[in-house]
């Protein structure tokens, strides 16, 4: 599913944190979410399955 995630360091050779920005209350397009707007270098919108061990970020 489409979601905003914190960009991943894919070079790491061990388990890394997969952070998903909580957008349950965001009704606008994800591209307009403050995390994307304010930190596009950190967050990205992806359309993949969210892993089971993902953590979440209440963007503030």
């Amino acid at each position: 599913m489409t979601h905003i995630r914190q960009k991943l360091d894919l070079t790491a050779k061990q388990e890394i944190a997969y952070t998903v920005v909580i957008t349950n209350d965001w009704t606008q397009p994800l591209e307009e979410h403050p995390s994307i707007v304010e930190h596009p270098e950190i967050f990205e919108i992806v359309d993949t399955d969210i892993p089971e061990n993902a953590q979440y970020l209440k963007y503030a």
Partner: protein
Amino acid sequence: MKRLLLALALMTISAICYAQPQYPINQTIGAPTTLVTSRGGFRADSSLIIPTYLDTTKANISPYGKNYAGAIIRVGDSVYMRNATATKWINISQSGGGNSWLIGGNINPLPPYIGTKDEKELDFITFDTVRMRMPSNGIKRLQGGARKYLLYDTTTKYVYYGDGGVGTTPSLQQVTDVDSVTTNNIYVNQINYYDSLVAPQHTVKTKALDGGFYIYSNIFNSNLFYVDAYDGFKSYNTTTGSISSFKNGNVTGTKEYYLPDTSGTLALKEYTIDSLKRNPGTDSVFAQKNGQWVFQYRDSVGVSGGGGGGGKIYYFNGGVSMGTFGGVPMYELGDTAVTGAAANFTRATTGNIANFITDVNKPGLLQIPAGVWTIDAYFSETGGGSNNAEIYAILEKWDGSTLTVIATSPVEQLTNGSVIDLYTFGISVPTTTISTTDRIVIQFYIQNTNGKTVTLYTQNGYVGEVHTTFTTGIGALNGLTAPTQTFAVGTSGTDFNISSATSTHTFNLPTASATNRGALSTTDWSTFNGKIGPSDTSVFQRKSVAAFTFKANNTSSTADAADQVFRDSGTLTYAGTITWTGTTAPSGATNHRYRWCQIGKQVTITISLNYASAGSALTAVKLTLPAGCPNPTNFGTLTAANDIIGSAWAFLGTSTTAATTSRVLLQNNAGNNGYEFNISSSSGNYRTAGFTLTYFTD
């Protein structure tokens, strides 16, 4: 003149009287009632025709036939003459080709019988006395007033014997039976009758070179016994067809013989010996095995000879020198027989002929049981007078330095002369104490030689032996040598022990106590049984308890320990849901761990989060209760979302060494469908978090 006339007259009369009359042919002289007499004899040149009658009775009609001795008549083909007293007609016929028996014997006589054709008995007479009468149904032998009968019934083919007085009906006994298969076999009945005048011994035998005969018994248990003239007594098994025979006392073929037991019932006996005999002059029974006569037993009425023994056997090995003992040369009294070259001993005067001693430390026992020792040895005597030489034996023991006499046998006479024969005699032996190192000695002596030379034969087919009273089994048990020993039980001593005395072995098992090692008494057993009962043993568990449990009494009074929870999860990887609040969450490699432990109802949990890269502007983090952790109790009241159940100190750190102290709250989650830990702090770039919190579960 008168004389001349008289003479002429006489001459005339004479001429008239003595002139041969001339009769025409077929003239009849005389009358039926007159008698014509011929003086000086009567000759018929051709033939003399005598009167013919139908029978002698008819001839009696004529007085001249009936009343005159010498009268001759013809009846049929027989000629009769009146006997000297004119009382009967005697048949005087001697027809060589006719129907009469010749006095001097007959060749192919006709008719082939002698007897009567009418209903008359035929008498056989000697010394003018009827000795035997052939009645209508058999032979009757007359003996004074008593009559003995031997009758053969042609219809039944039975032979009868009987007797009876004069004029009495004989009492007949059947003595034979008939063979229904062939009429030529006669079976002798079970009852045999003998005439007292006949010799008491009866025999049935065949002629020389005869093919023999068979006398069959009834079939019993499939065995039929019969006598074969050539082979002797035999038995035939009608089921298997096997035949066994006795020949000169030896049994060949099958070995099954049914002999009566003490109750007379025929039972199967099986013998594997060559032959059996009773030793002449004694009442012992011997069996010949492998050519050697071996003592078997003394019979039920025997009082001497044989008997006893039956135990250990020693053999007279005269070829094995044992050395000198007390100045006496001795030979082996061995455990096994030496059957090699002959070893004989001879002596011609009264005295010691041979001596035998057991091997070292033999018999190795402590006692000689009382009884009869039986000696079997071969002897012969030659030369000398008509008397029989005599032998006897002396039983002794050798203790290493001294020969001690134990018993002496009776004298045995060598009754079979120069024939090498087995002589058996016994020695009555009393109960004798010996040591395990004592050796047994038997010395042979001869006497009453009277010039005879006596020879004792050993080995080489004349193996001599002595049957002792030594048991072939256990000789001594725990030092006791009594032939009969018993076991008993006891409790003496301080530990299990066996006490042997006289003829009793006592097994002592003392009662266990503070000083005794032994068996548990019933009283003590009850005591121990009262200390630990079945219910205690089921609850008393020191080595086996349920999973994640320990025993404790969680009551305010004395009670049995009950299961309590004890569980330690060990270090696990935290995989619950983490929710950060801030600008960026910590990222990179993670090293999240947790561990919880439950003791009873109390649960303690430690969670540690560690990231490679710190987040930014983070103010809080929430962690869900790990899977498997017991749910915290809400006391029944903290049931709403976000209700706080418990708390503890926590930290959020920018590194593993730098942290900001905070607090963690255990609460119902926002959805009120689970539990979470909530750590909040001032904003920072954190990459670590952790806490240890204790709560209670229901």
